């Protein structure tokens, strides 16, 4: 793993990190002035799992979307550096960005109900992704899609191939989404709240599958979530965001050593089984956190 010093790989030679972000800012013009959702986020990512945690409005999703190139058209994105494998994502032509999106960087969205195409069978939409990026025959494509559906532990993938998204459960829909995102073998996967819309009992299965595939295929992962405990149990390193900024960076193992009052507050305010705290401690938001 390339934690700490991401620009040095195992053999000691230097190479560009998978992703380098320096002073990323995302600004939306509104009627009442500009709103800056992301205000100077910087990090580098190797082949590791990075968690981005924050509450609604903290800019965590917008960070993920800016990397993927899915920010709304009227928004302004600036950065000193936004590089994928040493190539600047912001200045490259749109066609080149399209080649990278889906092929080298893929993104899993929160709710399969809204992010799968409702009028296209599951098989066809995964084939569409594959054929956009690779030259394969129809038969080969189908074979690979079915193999991929099998890899995300869908029983009877041949049947699911011909189903429409509304005909499968939420958990299965999310597996389909994972399959669709991994079919081209991306090097970087961004998962934006991949399990928040799912039932608690299904969440663990989906995380398990995601975990196995990410480690088997050696991808970099950015896991965006509001759930600090979940992220720290899943990732190597966690960025805690508040009001568009990273307020604390932690190795997951050091969660207990968190020092920023916001991180501590987030950890504290969750009711847990066996802890008898009435009333629950609440976050006392300090204005200086968002300076």
């Amino acid at each position, binding site marked *: 793993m390339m934690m700490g010093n991401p620009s040095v790989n195992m053999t000691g030679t230097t190479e560009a990190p998978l992703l380098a972000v320096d002073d990323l800012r995302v600004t939306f013009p509104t009627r009442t002035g500009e709103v800056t959702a992301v205000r100077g986020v910087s990090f580098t990512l190797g082949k590791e799992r990075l968690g981005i945690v924050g*509450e609604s409005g903290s800019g965590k999703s917008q960070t993920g979307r800016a990397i993927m190139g899915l920010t709304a058209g009227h928004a302004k994105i600036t950065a000193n550096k936004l590089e994928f494998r040493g190539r600047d994502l912001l200045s490259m032509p749109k066609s080149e960005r399209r080649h990278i999106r889906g092929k080298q960087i893929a993104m899993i969205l929160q709710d399969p109900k809204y992010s799968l195409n409702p009028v296209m069978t599951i098989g066809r939409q995964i084939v569409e992704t594959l054929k956009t990026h690779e030259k394969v025959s129809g038969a080969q494509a189908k074979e690979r899609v079915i193999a991929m559906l099998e890899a995300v532990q869908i029983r009877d993938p041949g049947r699911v191939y011909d189903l429409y998204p509304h005909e499968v459960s*939420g958990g299965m829909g999310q597996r389909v989404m994972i399959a669709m995102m991994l079919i081209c073998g991306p090097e970087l996967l961004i998962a934006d709240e991949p399990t928040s819309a799912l039932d608690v*009992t299904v969440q663990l299965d989906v995380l398990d599958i995601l*975990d196995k595939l990410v480690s088997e295929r050696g991808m970099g992962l950015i896991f965006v979530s509001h759930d600090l405990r979940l992220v720290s149990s899943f990732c190597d390193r966690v960025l805690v965001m508040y009001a568009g900024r990273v307020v604390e960076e932690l190795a997951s193992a050091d969660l207990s050593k968190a020092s920023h009052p916001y991180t501590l507050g987030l950890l504290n305010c969750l009711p847990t089984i066996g802890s008898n705290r009435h009333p629950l401690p609440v976050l006392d938001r300090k204005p200086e956190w968002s300076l």
Partner: protein
Amino acid sequence: MSAIISIRDMLVTYDDFAALDHVSMDVEEGESFGIVGESGSGKSTLLRAVSGLEGFNSGTLTVAGKTYSGQSRTKEFYRTVQMVFQDPYGSLHPRQTVDRLLLEPLAIHGFTDVDVRIARALDEVGLGAGFRFRYSHQLSGGQRQRIAIARALILEPKILLLDEPTSALDASIQAEILNLLEQAKRDRGLTFVMVSHDLGVISHMCGRLAVMKSGKVVETVPAQALENREFSADYTRQLLVASEGFSRG
């Protein structure tokens, strides 16, 4: 202690599908009773059938000594029982001010001192008079849920039905709302029936809980049983493992 809500053999069907399959349950006066289960387990249907938003096909429902059936509920029932819903974005009228929203239940039930009551209700949920003439889109999710709670409490009910009251909120806001609910319960001696998929929240708020699956109650246990692992159903164990988060291996 006597049961303030008593449900016997309640059956709710949609065509051939039994959303509630002969469910029986007793909720004591003054307690917090939790209902957990995955989506589709019937936990929300149960609350909706008690509150009359949904009719039930057979079985009996007794609330505070009165028996109800089907979908018909008296005005008196709604003085006793109020409900708070999951989605604070969907449960407040978008074109009514907070003042109008809180006035409606008072008008229906013929209260006269509305001004005082609305001011007091806002105060109680920690929102000042400044919120009184705002629209719901001018409020954050947590503030909306406070308004929804104020709307339920303004009729001084004895029982609150809470359908995932905090699952649409951020963790830090969830803590505030749970504290507010506990405070209201202490001050007014309320009875809570709370539905949630989060065992942490239920064990924090409730003394007893029922675990539901496929329209049936799997088991009813005291909240301590979760801590001491003193439950018998395998499904309860599954829910508990799921609530403890991800682990590799």
